[in-house]
């Protein structure tokens, strides 16, 4: 059996302890070992953005990290956007209002990318939003509604 | 993709022809060739480990020679597959006398498919050119050594 490594990390504010094989991708660890299937895998080589999560506050590609590398880290996944069941984070609410998703497959990655963007730049211009989400590929929406949603979220968060 | 070019050997045409069609020489000069054996007249099977830096893969393939007009021209078809993808192609080679030796002109139409074609497409043409250079340089060394 392959050698297993102990990892100890925080996921959406909760401490996690596990044993993983070195080659287990962080995305697979999150989905399979933690049951948090909101994080999606599509291209598995870093270009589509569906797997984007926050690691120590920064948006990263979880398909390009091994779980063993997340030892000691603080992760936030899309499930962490809504700590209270039955509620929606203003970002999610904005995507709902402005139709920022259709099939929803790219959406968790887009949300986490947008979340990181708005934390760094709470009032982005349209150009800045476009550049900020350029690393997320969407097959359904044509992106305009995503941009409107991020803009809507910035406005809503600004009003809070 | 289409690859074409020339390579000049400081050796007489008969020698270059002999080297290019000798399976023992090909086995030694094809980049990454682990094994080349004849499986029929003018037909060979080869196992080739190719790659650039970290990107490496093993291909198993067949090469068939046709339309031989010694010592001037021949055609070659190849197909190979392995982990990283597959390769299929047709090439024509022509040998001509030039002052000081022989010029080999080649033209190949190659299709590459599978992962390496999708992800590595940007570099395929360049890497293929590089490998052809390597191959011809090794043939030149072989001919020089045999002289």
């Amino acid at each position, binding site marked *: 059996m*392959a*050698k297993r*490594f102990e990892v100890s990390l925080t996921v959406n504010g909760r401490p996690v302890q596990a044993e993983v*094989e*070195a*080659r287990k*991708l962080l995305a*697979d660890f999150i989905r399979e070992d933690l049951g948090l299937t909101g994080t999606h895998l599509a291209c*598995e*080589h*870093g270009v589509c*953005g569906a797997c*984007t999560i926050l*690691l120590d506050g*920064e*948006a*990263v*590609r979880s*398909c*390009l*990290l*091994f779980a*063993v*590398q997340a030892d000691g880290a603080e992760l936030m996944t899309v499930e962490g956007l809504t700590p209270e069941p039955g509620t929606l984070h203003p970002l999610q609410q904005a995507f709902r209002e402005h139709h920022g998703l259709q099939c929803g497959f790219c959406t968790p990655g887009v949300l986490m*990318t947008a979340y*990181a*963007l708005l934390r760094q730049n709470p009032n982005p211009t349209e150009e800045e939003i*476009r*550049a*900020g989400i*350029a*690393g997320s590929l969407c097959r359904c929406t044509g992106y305009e509604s995503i941009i409107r949603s991020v803009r809507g979220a910035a406005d809503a968060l600004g009003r809070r | *993709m*289409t690859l074409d070019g020339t390579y000049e050997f400081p050796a007489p045409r008969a020698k270059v022809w002999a080297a290019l069609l000798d399976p023992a020489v090909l086995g030694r000069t094809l980049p990454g060739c682990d094994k080349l054996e004849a499986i029929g007249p003018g037909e060979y099977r080869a196992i080739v480990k190719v790659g*650039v*830096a*970290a*990107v*490496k*893969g093993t291909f198993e393939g067949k090469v068939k020679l046709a339309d031989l007009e010694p010592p001037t021209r021949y055609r070659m078809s190849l197909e190979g597959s392995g*982990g*990283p993808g597959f390769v299929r192609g047709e090439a024509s080679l022509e040998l001509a006398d030039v002052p000081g030796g022989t010029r080999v002109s080649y033209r190949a139409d190659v299709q590459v498919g599978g*992962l*390496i074609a999708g*992800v*590595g*497409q*940007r*570099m*395929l*043409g*360049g*890497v293929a*050119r*590089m490998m052809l250079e390597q191959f011809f340089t090794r043939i030149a060394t072989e001919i020089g050594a045999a002289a």
Partner: protein
Amino acid sequence: MKPAPFEYVRPRSLAEALEVLRQHGDEAKCLAGGQSLVPLMNLRLSKPGVVVDLNALKDLAYVRAEDGSVSIGALTRQRVLETSPVIRQRAPLLAEVTPLIGHPPIRARGTFGGSLAHADPAAEYPAVVLALEGRMRAARAGSEREVPAEEFFVTYLTTALEPVEILTEVTVPVLPPHTGTAFVELTRRHGDFAIVGVAAVVTLDEAGAISRIRLALCGVGPTPLRARRAEAVLQGQRPSQALVAEAGRVAMDEADPADDLHGSAEYRREMTAVFARRTLGRALERLGVRL
């Protein structure tokens, strides 16, 4: 598409890392940002026997202003070069080019040294480091050596680094006064690898003539290349539209592109001239010279 099994090591010091490489040679691959290596591993185009995770070597991530130069630790995350005040002051070309690399999540993990050691022929950092005449420090168990940028990039994905070596630092000299720099690239989408990229470093003397010029191209050959013949055209001359156009034409002949899906060799060659002109124009604009 998951990686093949490998042995995983996370050394806590550079010495430890170098010892692992000394033992395993070309069976080992270094993992820095992972933004180039892990895709290759996930697609099984690369199957290293041993993965040496360098991310615990925090001592190798730094930006240091030194006398007449700036030294950058190889493990410095790319996003640091976007905002570092020392880089903006001493090597603004690096700050200019960084936002063009991939996307923020890529730059959050990707490292400066990793990009250089990976040596993608269309990558931006190698061309910039070439134009800035950087020096690379390569360490191995028991010793280290310095490799100038112009000897560092050998061919596709291949550098002068041997399997037992780690790139630890890059030093870039501070540019002389009255130097304008620019980097412009042609891509289909924001964040793509360059179809053609040009880095220009132009210094003018008191008479307004070009006293020093460095022009580096990426995406048009197996490695980044210095367009030395184009530089010779510009050297000592007063900038003008005609001169810059001529330099562009000469640079075009020095480029050695191959065909690919994003552009034919002919297209890339033509674009080399266009982008050489644009980049030179922008570098000169920054010196207050309008062509």
